């Protein structure tokens, strides 16, 4: 299992997208799926930095990315404030410009782009799992 530790800063997003993108590419995903995986991971990590570690400096989180049983499995483990994406109201994507909500879009995209999004509170921290099936 490949797990890396990143500082909870938005500046790490480039490296994270490269990391999961490379893993997806060598696992044989097509360009469209690679972009989806990078975008979903970015949204997950951005939420962790923004919400779980709100107001906390020097925080870090762990990210792993593995390919098994034809699935790319990405996990994000943080020790910040628990934040269950399934409890977040999804934006109404049919709403008019004036009624369009700004929040919840990242989680909405994550769920649309990936086959599975799971959130668990475990002994080793908040665990977010993203799964993309190949083909």
């Amino acid at each position: 299992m490949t797990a890396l530790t990143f500082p909870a800063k938005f500046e790490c997003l480039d490296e994270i997208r490269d990391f999961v993108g490379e893993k997806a590419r060598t696992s044989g995903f097509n360009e469209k799926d690679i972009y989806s995986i990078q975008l979903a991971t970015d949204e997950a990590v951005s939420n962790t930095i923004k919400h779980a570690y709100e107001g906390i400096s020097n925080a870090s989180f762990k990210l792993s990315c593995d390919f098994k049983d034809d699935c790319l499995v990405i996990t994000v483990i943080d020790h910040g404030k628990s934040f269950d994406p399934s409890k977040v109201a999804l934006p109404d994507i049919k709403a008019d410009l004036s009624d369009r909500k700004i929040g919840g879009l990242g989680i909405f995209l994550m769920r649309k782009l990936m086959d599975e999004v799971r959130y668990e509170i475990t002994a080793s921290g908040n665990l977010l799992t993203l799964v993309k099936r190949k083909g």
Partner: protein
Amino acid sequence: MEVTIKEFKHCNMVSVKGRVDSATAPQFTQALDAQMDKGVFNLVVDMSALEYMSSAGFRALLAAQRNCKRYNRGEVFLAAVPDRIREALELAGFTELFKTYADSLEAVGNF
């Protein structure tokens, strides 16, 4: 990410290059705000050299469209949107909120 501005008679073109994510979106927002602060509310966002945009960038576009369309004073057009970014915008239901043109000069011509 890099932003360049080109002024036209009826609108300004904001060309955004590279990647817009949570780290760079504030800079993109600032560039759009600077146009609106100058009183320019007809904007073409040229995405021909854009490689990547997350929801942080989508939010910047939404805020700009709201501001520009207020009092019917203007509008944001999107131009030369790369396929992957267009697919994500579609997923988020954003393509209905923006007129989109294949070519940036075609967008300029429609103001």
